[in-house]
């Protein structure tokens, strides 16, 4: 859904940018999310106050993607952020410009922005690597 306002991050979310990735944690559910480019660029624009058009502009500026496809993909991405309880639409107006207006020399290869979601129950389903390493165990007895 494309709305005229801007998106605000829910208070139970904590998030941090590291290199080209954004890591986000829902402190109440224990779910955590990773965003890679261009989703991380969308997040940077979003938290900088950009509205829908500003976020799309950020993507189109930095990635090799037609405007129409970027609009469709960003809409899907923002809908998923809302559905996961990460952000909500506010009636506050967006900032005028995308936060990162630097135009690169060459646009980057594009893939649709998406959320990588993990649940803290996942680990319960994982095998224990030490105890499944083999009959010799680890480390070997000398």
């Amino acid at each position, binding site marked *: 859904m494309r709305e005229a306002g801007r998106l605000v991050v829910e*208070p*139970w979310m*904590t*998030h*941090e940018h*590291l*290199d*080209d*990735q954004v*890591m986000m*944690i829902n*402190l*109440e*559910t*224990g779910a*955590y999310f*990773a965003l890679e480019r261009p989703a991380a660029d969308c997040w940077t624009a979003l938290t900088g106050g950009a509205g829908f058009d500003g976020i799309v502009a950020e993507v189109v500026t930095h990635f090799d993607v037609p405007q129409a496809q970027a609009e469709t993909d960003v809409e899907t991405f923002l809908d998923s952020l*809302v*559905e996961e*309880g990460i952000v909500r639409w506010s009636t506050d107006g967006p900032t005028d410009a995308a936060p990162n207006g630097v135009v690169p020399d060459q646009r980057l290869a594009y893939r649709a922005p998406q959320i990588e979601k*993990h649940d*803290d129950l*996942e*680990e319960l389903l*994982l095998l*224990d*690597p*030490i*105890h499944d*390493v*083999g009959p*010799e*165990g*680890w*480390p*070997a*007895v*000398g």
Partner: protein
Amino acid sequence: MRQYIPPAPPPELVDEFVARTLEAFEEAGAHQPTEERHLRIADRSVVVRFRSPEVADRYRAATAHVEVGADAPPPGPPALTIGCWDTATSGVGLPPLPWIQDNLLHRDRVRGHTTGDVRATYQQSEGLLHLYDGRRGLGLMHATSAAAVQPWTDRAPFRTFIGWWATDCSLSMMHSSCVATDRGAALIAGGSGSGKSTTAMTCVLAGFAFLCDDACIVDLDAPGGPMVHAVYGRSKLEPDAAHRLGLSPGPDGGALITEPPGAVAHAAARVLLLPTVTGRPETRVEALPRTEVLRTLVPGSIREGGGLGGRALQEMTRVVRTLPSYRLLLGTDPAGVVEAVAAAIDGAAVANVDPSVEGA
């Protein structure tokens, strides 16, 4: 479709609950003698007041190495005060909770209290409450009885409080083992079963100093550079790991819980290692993108204690930005493990790193 999220109680109701819980703790002191312990954690003073004698006994060993004698308590007010009582021995219960059922979440989290000034976890079945007020530097723990306090917490008492408080002090509580040479310390982090405890104990048996098995505090802003501080002094080894290291398993053949020799309270933080068991003979280190390091650290930290409250993610990310990090590809030869960890502390691990890898 987005799920309906019921609101958390208003702040004034929560503040009243904190005040009434503190009153209940004080009232418990009229029925049950107080045992007071003074701890020194990350160069800060922490006072624990027990009005639950059984929990006090159970929690003694894990913090003995950071305990300051009662005859010489540190000057000035404590940075953190923890009160602990149970209803069975004191006869004093909790005041009415301010939360509706829908506010009580998975893994004892409480809606509206994973961040902010007042943080809480509540285990309904055992009436086990951890209530933390960052403004007062206060943690209150209540259980219906000492039996309601899970045995696994004996190895890491008040971990939830200490994690929240550390974050409020711009420190990072890391879910990691830590060992040191005279050149500095290696944090060994990873998920359950990744090999961190076994790696740490392998190094300790080779003469390294022991800082912690499961949780430590990193102070990136220490005057002389990043420091790692011990919090808990006990180590746990699964029976098969104990056997392979030439140690006897614990009672009834279970996990070996021990206070490793050569414990030190702090050391200069040099390197962060993420172990992976390979099954190959030799041990190697390899560079890791910093983003992968953070992805490895986050799930373990969510799972432990009350999760990543407050600014814990930001502090953890600072650690990843600051310390060199490597994957430790564990071989089967313990001597090789020791050599690789020592080299990583010395900075020699860089020789094995592909400089083109991000974060190297």
